[in-house]
């Protein structure tokens, strides 16, 4: 059989995804596909997004049809070269489907996939994907958790170990945030690296997590191999204080939704499940106090307390700033006029959650930076 035949499979976006529903093909049979192209829209319980392929070829076969609900890893379509025979493709499909086993329920349980580590008396939850090489550490923003990287984690882990952690006060980590400012959270990231014997890592931080990563890079230069800041805090005083306050204050779905919609360029991404998950997080004892403590230290009165812009030129390792041009939380202008050592990429039309909404662009930029 031709070696050129490759399966396009139902991706796994985040810990809890078990299946996805085909919302429609974006490519026709016979179309030429390049790596990074979006071929299909898929809806899941939590989020809707496009399936991207990591290889090139001709879309020879659409197996899944609009409306089909398929388990993670099941066959969506087939890529192959022009000269591959239809018979070979038929054989490939038959063999794939004969051998395909949907993931068992227990393997899909998010709580068994994540691990925890004690960092100076706090429990820190993290998820590790991939192995070898200088690892990447993904640091989420205010009110987020390791699921904010669901479209990045697996892709970045193709060639190396990638850790995503829950900062204190977030996700399933301890709710004690100490003093709560950028320095306190940076100390936790440092402690996390020490606890897991990570001597050096590529840091990728989003929003507040960007400021935290930047702080680690400035104060522990020997531990950082590169720095990627996405819609990052720490580069100017402005931040949408109403968003922070609104996120903290909202107790009910309809109060929270308008604030969360500000994060995305496409408000349709803010699903019922996303809001329910955020409310479930916010309702846990200690979370409210943790968020208030962080806000008071990080953005008292709605302005960022710590601006490290004038020191970013001192960083000797590769630095990149990625922004969505329409970021309504931290303005994209903070990515402009940075010193020459910083590559700035402003992605048109995107919002604050650019790593989710333009995942393949962001993943590619990170891969290029890291090399």
């Amino acid at each position, binding site marked *: 059989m031709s070696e050129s035949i490759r399966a396009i499979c139902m991706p796994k976006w985040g810990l809890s995804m078990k299946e996805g529903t085909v919302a429609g093909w974006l490519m026709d049979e016979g179309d030429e596909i390049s790596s990074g192209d979006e071929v299909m829209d898929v809806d899941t319980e939590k989020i809707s997004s496009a399936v991207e392929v990591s290889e090139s070829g001709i879309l020879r076969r659409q197996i899944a049809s609009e409306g089909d609900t398929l388990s993670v890893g099941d066959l969506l379509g087939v890529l192959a070269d022009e000269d591959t025979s239809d018979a070979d493709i038929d054989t490939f499909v038959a063999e794939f489907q004969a051998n395909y086993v949907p993931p068992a329920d227990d393997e899909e*349980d*998010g*709580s068994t996939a*994540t691990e925890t580590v004690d960092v100076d008396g706090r429990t820190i*939850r993290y998820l590790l994907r991939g192995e070898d090489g200088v690892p990447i550490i993904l640091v989420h923003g205010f009110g987020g958790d390791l699921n904010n990287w669901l479209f990045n984690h697996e892709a970045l882990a193709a060639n190396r170990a990638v850790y995503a952690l829950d900062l204190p006060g977030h996700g*399933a980590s301890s*709710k004690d945030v100490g003093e709560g400012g950028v320095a306190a959270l940076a100390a936790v990231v440092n402690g996390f690296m020490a606890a897991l014997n990570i001597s050096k890592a590529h840091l990728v931080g989003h929003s507040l997590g960007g400021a935290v990563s930047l702080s680690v890079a400035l104060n522990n230069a020997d531990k950082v191999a590169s720095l990627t800041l996405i819609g990052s805090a720490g580069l100017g005083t402005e931040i949408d204080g109403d968003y922070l306050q609104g996120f903290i204050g909202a*107790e*009910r*779905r*309809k109060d929270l939704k308008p604030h969360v919609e500000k994060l995305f360029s496409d408000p349709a991404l803010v699903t*019922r499940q996303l809001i*329910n998950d955020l409310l*479930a997080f916010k*309702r*846990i*004892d*200690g979370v409210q106090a943790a968020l208030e403590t962080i806000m008071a230290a990080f953005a008292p009165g709605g302005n960022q307390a710590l601006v490290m812009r004038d020191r970013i030129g001192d960083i000797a390792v590769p630095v990149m700033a990625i922004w969505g041009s329409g970021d309504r939380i931290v303005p994209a202008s903070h990515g402009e006029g940075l010193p020459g050592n910083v590559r700035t990429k402003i992605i048109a039309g995107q919002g604050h959650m650019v790593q989710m909404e333009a995942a393949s662009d962001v993943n590619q930029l990170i891969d290029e930076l890291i090399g």
Partner: protein
Amino acid sequence: MARTITYQQAIGEALAQEMERDKTVVMMGEDVAGGAGAPGEDDAWGGVLGVTKGLHGKFGDRVMDTPITESAFIGAAVGAATSGLRPVVELMFIDFMGVCFDQIFNQAAKFRYMFGGNAETPVVIRTMYGAGFRAAAQHSQCLYPVFTHIPGLKVVTPSTPYDAKGLLIQSIRDNDPVVFCEHKALYTLEGDVPEEAYAIPFGEANITREGDDVTIVTLGRMLQVAHEAADALSKDGINCEVVDLRTTSPMDTDTIIESVENTGRLVVMDESHPRCSIATDVSAIVAQEAFGALKAPIQMVTAPHTPVPFAENLEDLYIPDATNVQDAVRKVMGND
């Protein structure tokens, strides 16, 4: 971190965590510890179905067995609530509530009002309700509409393990009397529940399924039946939105109305009797507030206006099922 536990375990965990957190939380009821004279935890049954098992061993005298005198121990709990404790009192079956209506309706529910807002009565009455247990007419009723009728009471009807824990914690922390209704057929239902304590605010309905064609408003055990029906209907291209009330007092009328304004059709599904019920209440609110949005008459799916039968075949027939819901949905869709 969330893991899978049962509805019954979620209730037990909420009680244990709140008793740990707040020393004023106490428990009382028939056999909640283990029955009078039980030698210790090993022998403690922990309520008629074991929901409170282990709490007596952990919290000792803060978990009190009472004689079979509902009027006395509900009265004692109400009194304790007015004088500094936060009692969680278990009244085994909601059907027995009748003997202590004065303590509940005329005392607990009225203290705040009668004393000019100066009195608080933070008591939680936990109780089992619902049919399907072969327990006959005097142990199977869905009497939460009776309590919903009374101003001054809050009424909670959790449908999942997650909601059971979060709503019970909210009930214990609330400063008003709460009737917390547990469907006995849900005790073995499993679901994801965080290990940490968390409180779900009252008066927020949960949209458990989104759809554009029909709104199904339901609560308690009927949520699962509504989902079963919605799954079947989706195969015919009918998309149901399912609204779980979570609490019947306060009731989240905004969410109901917004949903009906979107779908234009309403089916209310309730396991209780059809008259003066949650089904009639929701129907009346929608008829009053969202009449202009309705494309079809409202349909109610309820049990019949009879006692719960003891004969198994009749009891099965009595409880609303997914077929009843599907029929009602097809009726409001105009293609029955």
